[in-house]
């Protein structure tokens, strides 16, 4: 009570933001002396608006969103990494699987080739799911617009609805929706970065804690506290998974245990070793993104990443250099 409040913006909700949930539920923000209030703004552009308008202190944002925004002049900076693996899978409906003969065990190139003529949902154009789908195809020299019907379907429950209704043959998204689809028997996950089958996203960080230089100047303590709380949460989850699971479970009260456990396992694999974002990770992300970009991204590491707080936290909390 009476603690200053940090407002965080986020686009959608799901396991990609689990670290944040954990940090809040386990009281790591409190420990830093702050309360956190989360505003779900539903999409990348609105996250950027919230950050640049100063109404949110930070946001867990896809690094590729940050890069896209920067490329257009949106002055965002990443201060820490939240997950080290792109948590986005491709789910196909049973009918589509039967039709294409795709099998999760097939080599990725073969699976991609067989996606021909399917209708695949993404959340929205330009989002991580869009990028993921397009790069999967482009990396294998297939033009997604020629071969597939890419349907932006929005977040929330729309994707599952579309799949169940048969309005789409599959969707690209993260946990828990992919797992829900698989567990409810509507479809199967056929491409899964967690199985290390997608070389181009190997070592590409997904969600990064993002803010603006302006905020860093005006509210350095809040940003530092955020990075520290998140670092503590990652450490907690890594070292004490069963405890951590119990702490966040109530946030997903509606979810059945099976889905939750699978999602957790995926999340666990994606916890980064350190909050710091390395130059290599940054460049790998650019390379990945450049697969689909019309003109190569020229955004530089130094202007996009502000590593001070992450380095401090790593040194102090994780005893890492």
């Amino acid at each position, binding site marked *: 009570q009476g603690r200053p409040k940090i407002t965080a913006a986020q686009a959608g909700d799901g396991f990609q933001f689990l670290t944040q949930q954990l940090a809040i539920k386990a009281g790591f923000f409190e420990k830093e002396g702050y309360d956190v209030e989360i505003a*779900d*703004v*539903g999409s990348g552009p609105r996250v950027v*608006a*919230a950050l640049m308008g100063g109404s949110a202190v930070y946001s867990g944002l896809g690094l590729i969103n940050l890069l896209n925004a920067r490329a257009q002049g949106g002055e965002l900076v990443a201060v820490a990494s939240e997950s080290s693996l792109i948590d986005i899978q491709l789910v196909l409906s049973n009918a589509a699987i039967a039709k294409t003969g795709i099998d999760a065990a097939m080599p990725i190139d073969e699976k991609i080739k067989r996606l021909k003529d399917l209708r695949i949902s993404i959340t929205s154009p330009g989002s991580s799911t869009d990028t993921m789908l397009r790069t999967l195809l482009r990396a294998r020299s297939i033009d997604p617009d020629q071969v597939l019907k890419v349907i932006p379907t929005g977040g929330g429950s729309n994707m599952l609805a579309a799949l169940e209704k048969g309005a789409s043959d599959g969707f690209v998204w993260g946990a828990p929706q992919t797992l829900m689809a698989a567990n409810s028997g509507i479809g199967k996950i056929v491409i899964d970065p967690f199985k290390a089958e997608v070389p181009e996203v190997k070592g590409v960080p997904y969600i990064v804690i993002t803010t603006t230089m302006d905020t860093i100047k005006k509210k350095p303590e809040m940003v530092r506290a955020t990075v520290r709380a998140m670092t503590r949460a990652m450490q907690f989850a890594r070292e004490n998974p069963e405890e951590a699971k119990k702490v966040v479970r109530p946030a997903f009260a*509606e979810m059945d245990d099976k889905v939750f456990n699978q999602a957790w396992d995926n999340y666990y694999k994606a916890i980064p070793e350190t909050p710091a974002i390395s130059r290599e990770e940054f460049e790998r992300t650019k390379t990945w993104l450049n697969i689909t970009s019309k003109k190569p991204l020229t955004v530089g590491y130094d202007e996009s990443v502000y590593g001070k707080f992450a380095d401090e936290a790593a040194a102090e909390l994780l005893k890492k250099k």
Partner: protein
Amino acid sequence: MTGRSVVSTDQAVRTKAGERRAVLVWQIAFGLGALALWELTGRVFGSTWTSLPSQIAQRLLLWGGTDLFRHVYVTLTEVFVGLALGTVAGVVAGLALGRTQTLALVLRPIIVTLYSVPLVTMAPLLILWFGLEMESKIVLVTVVVFFLMFFNTFAGVQSIDPLLVTTLDLMGATTLERYRKVIAPAAMAWIFSGIKIALPYALSAATTGELLGGSYGLGTLLSRAGSQFDMTGLYTALIVLLVIGILLSEGVAFVENHLLRWRHVAE
């Protein structure tokens, strides 16, 4: 403009107390019937996408114990403040432009143009300038209400019998008095029509605003439930919203009946 100007609704409004009670009973019966039908079909055909009234009731109890009221409070505040600001601005603009040919000729196209901008696409700007708290939603609601009120008031002013106005003018009414004593009351039917239309839009604008970015309000409940595939949560929030919508619109209808009571000819 005549005194006896009601076609059929007046019969309903002329209601004696008994009739009013009958209407209420039917309204409630209608609502309960719809819920029962929902529950029944849900149980028969499955309810993955639609949840069930019984589950919603349980959820309502659960939420009632936590922060449901805070969400409701936030949404209602946004709605009322926005409604008040938008109505005042819209009515004033409608009255002014409705009576001033020059102003209307020059400003009307601008207003129509601004009105035509789809606000959802401007959500980022709204957040950029007005943040994630109530202000941005209040702005959204105000804008939505303003235009609806403006168009209705403008049309209402245009429909006034010019002779009513001149009669008062000849008595020496000042501009302000002309508005107060003739134009505003004469346009009242249109203004209320505007409010009745604007009310649901205000609620919907506030919750949409919350959906597009916010941490409190029924819209946040909706987006939270939606992203967690929590259909019961989604419908619970929707039902709360529905009930608020019904209560508010009934309130407006009540005020309207009182202010426009001269239209109800005695029998």
